[in-house]
């Protein structure tokens, strides 16, 4: 066993830490405090991060990206999230879908989409799956209800597909330039047999973005509605097989990882960053603030709380890096899903302990601890946390 990082991995980690400390942290709380969901976003930080490679980290070198391994990606996500979880997610969301482009798209599509993505610092990616009446049904389609799941309809007309319907909660929708869209191409077939994936550019006629969701956590991260009214998508934008959306990424099974399973690593690595931040600030606070004339840290009960925070965080770090390593080694397992489930529990426990260590000053709660608790709350709501747990159990079986 060898836990040492390579020089390249360490370089990326240090670059990310520096960018996080110098550029992200100074804007994090101010962005979080902006009351209007649409206005929390900041293109400057995206451009700065893009120039350092954080937008295109996962694009293969042959297409002008950085072609980093999964361990590097996990390290960078955690470092960025240490300063702001939502800003880290805004960058890594692009990696998820650039993985998918590299694995599932044709060379012609890669030329058409991956190259402009790499060239443009403001080019962000997203994927539309959820719909107002189809959330968990897309993750765990019920055997006894073949009609369940997404309803967005795509019908072929000559060289084009006509899309009608809507998506909701879609990450990067309000700011993205290109989206993968899952649409029903055979409404009589169950979800898995009747869904096709399309590449839909932002300027597609008949496609527009609706409202931006006003979340309590991850405020910087933009989740929006997508509305398709006779949107016209060229046939050349079909990804993979018609009615084959769920067989994307060329792998099936436990892909390692063309897209979706990267999302599991992404969430647990991001959670690790929040935990690192919480541990560091809790320790600093406990050793700087006095109560009754003595440092908070002198209290046994505070030491026990901080111990628990670090213990959980280090356990999560081990799990995250093992999963990243397994992805690099092309090991097929359910560990990514389990690590994601674990990270939900850990990130919420650690941030709540942090809030407890801080407590209110006067009668005001520190903004930073409030933000971390709200950000970590999001984990219970991502793609249906309970559903993800059952899904992993079914994969294990």
């Amino acid at each position, binding site marked *: 066993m060898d836990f040492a990082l390579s020089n390249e991995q360490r370089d990326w980690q240090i670059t990310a830490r520096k960018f996080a400390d110098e550029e992200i942290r100074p804007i994090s709380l101010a962005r979080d405090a902006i*009351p209007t969901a649409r206005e929390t976003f900041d293109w400057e930080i995206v451009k700065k991060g893009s120039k350092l490679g954080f937008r295109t980290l996962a694009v293969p070198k042959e297409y002008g990206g950085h072609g980093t391994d999964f361990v590097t990606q996990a390290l960078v996500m955690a470092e960025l999230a240490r300063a702001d979880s939502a800003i880290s997610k805004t960058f890594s969301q692009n990696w998820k879908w650039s993985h998918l482009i590299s694995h599932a798209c044709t060379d012609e599509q890669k030329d058409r989409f991956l190259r402009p993505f790499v060239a443009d610092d403001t080019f962000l990616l997203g994927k539309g799956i*959820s719909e107002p*009446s*189809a*959330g*968990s*049904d897309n993750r*765990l389609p*019920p055997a*006894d*209800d073949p009609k*369940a799941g997404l309803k967005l309809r795509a019908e072929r007309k000559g060289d084009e597909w006509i899309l009608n319907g809507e998506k*909701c*909660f879609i990450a990067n929708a309000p700011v993205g330039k290109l989206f993968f869209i899952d649409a029903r191409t055979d409404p009589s077939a169950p979800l898995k047999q009747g869904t096709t994936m399309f590449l839909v550019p932002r300027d597609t006629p008949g496609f527009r973005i609706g409202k931006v*969701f*006003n*979340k*309590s*956590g991850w405020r910087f991260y933009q989740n929006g509605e997508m509305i398709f009214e006779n949107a016209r998508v060229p046939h050349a934008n079909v990804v993979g097989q018609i009615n084959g959306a769920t067989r994307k990424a060329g792998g099936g099974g436990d892909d390692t990882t063309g897209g979706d399973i990267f999302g599991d690593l992404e969430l647990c690595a991001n959670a690790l960053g929040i935990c690192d931040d919480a541990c560091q600030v809790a320790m600093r606070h406990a050793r700087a603030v006095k*109560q*009754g*004339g*003595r440092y*908070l840290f*002198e*209290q046994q*009960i*505070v030491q026990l*709380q901080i111990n628990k925070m670090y213990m959980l965080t280090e356990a999560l770090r081990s799990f995250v890096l093992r999963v990243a390593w397994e992805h690099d080694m092309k090991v097929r397992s359910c560990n990514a899903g389990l690590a994601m489930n674990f990270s939900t529990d850990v990130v*919420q426990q650690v941030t709540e302990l942090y*809030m*407890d260590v801080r*407590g*209110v000053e*006067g*009668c*005001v*709660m520190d903004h930073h601890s409030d933000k971390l*608790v709200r950000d970590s*709350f*999001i984990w*219970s*709501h*991502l793609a*249906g*946390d*309970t*559903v993800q747990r*059952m899904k992993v159990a079914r994969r294990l079986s």
Partner: protein
Amino acid sequence: MAENKNRYSGNVKVQGSIMYNLHLTAEQLEIRDMVRDFVTHELKPVVLKADRLDVGDRSLPMALLDKASQLGLRTLSLAEDHGGAGADQLTCCTVTEELAAGDAGIAATFAETSRLAKILFGGAMTDAQHARFLPLFAENDRCHLALANHEPGNDESLGVNYHRPVPAADDIKTVAARSDDGGWIVNGVKDCVANAPVAGLIAVAAKIPGQADAGILVIQTDTPGLSVRAHEGAWHHGPCGEVTFKNCRVPAANLLGGETAELLAADERSGRGNALMQAVNLGIGRAAYEAAIDYAKLRVQGGRPIAEHQAIGTKLADIAVKLEVARAAVWRAAWACDHPEAYADRSLSDLPLQTIAQVFTRQAMLEAAKDAAEVFGAMGVMRDIPMQKYAHDARVSLHGSDSNREAKLRIAEALLGYRRPALAIAAE
């Protein structure tokens, strides 16, 4: 302390049985249902509008506060012959839970006013003071009460002083000095004062030069020299704020009797305020639970309403378990406030039942609110649905005042029978 309790209970109209009895009286049920009706039909439609859900900006709907006052909620525990309902603590807790199921902040505001009314008008005032202040309070729906007893930077937590004598601290800096005309000139600052922004009368603790003990003065908030600044975004249920006294001239007759400080301290020790806060907390958890149940019955995924899936069904069951156990603890704590004789004859353990209920309820209601939010899937994190307000409010309950860490230290001292020396060692 027991004497005072008896004095109040003689006036109680709505009263539980002397035996431990969970059968609410007809009057208790009636008032609970009246408040529930008010919350469902009048309060919720206003306070759950999207623009009022933002945690940073919750202005008080004053017309509804007036209405709640007219229902008698401001004077709920005030004795009957003073114009109140003379409700006992258990009744106050059931009413507070109902009100909090609509809005925690409004419930906390009324609970505080009603609690203070019972103390201030119940034993602290001379007849002349009564005649002056009671009409000001009783006849004005907008006259809430506040107790200004905390000063900026004062740290009252137990913390490092667990099981140790607390070093003497001269913690009251607000001063009431005699003026030439025989009245008082008050100078000082109090903060984290619950109800301050809506109070008509404020009781304030101040040092009186030449006297060892602090005095308690009642001051009308429109007195020149008194200003209130609301704490924006405070982690507190209901409005709270900073009260500044700058050469604030107060009539001599506003100083309450010397026993007032002890009456207030006894009320604090009794845990009455704590039990009310946990009733607020129960209301928050129940509102979250009811919203989750409604949604789980409507929302169809996996071919059936999600309530019919085991994963969601058991989540709802977990919430119900926490609510019921917490309510049992809070009711018992409330009943114990009403029946000190049950401690005396060892029917109840001599542990601080209100603090025990607090530790359990605060943690359980936060978990309940989180679970309830999860039932809503992605919608559960949106600021424009009530669920986020409930989750935030539950966090405020857990972390807004002292922490459960502190509360457990107090329980631990009680378990061991630790008695802190009344006067701490000044020089060591």
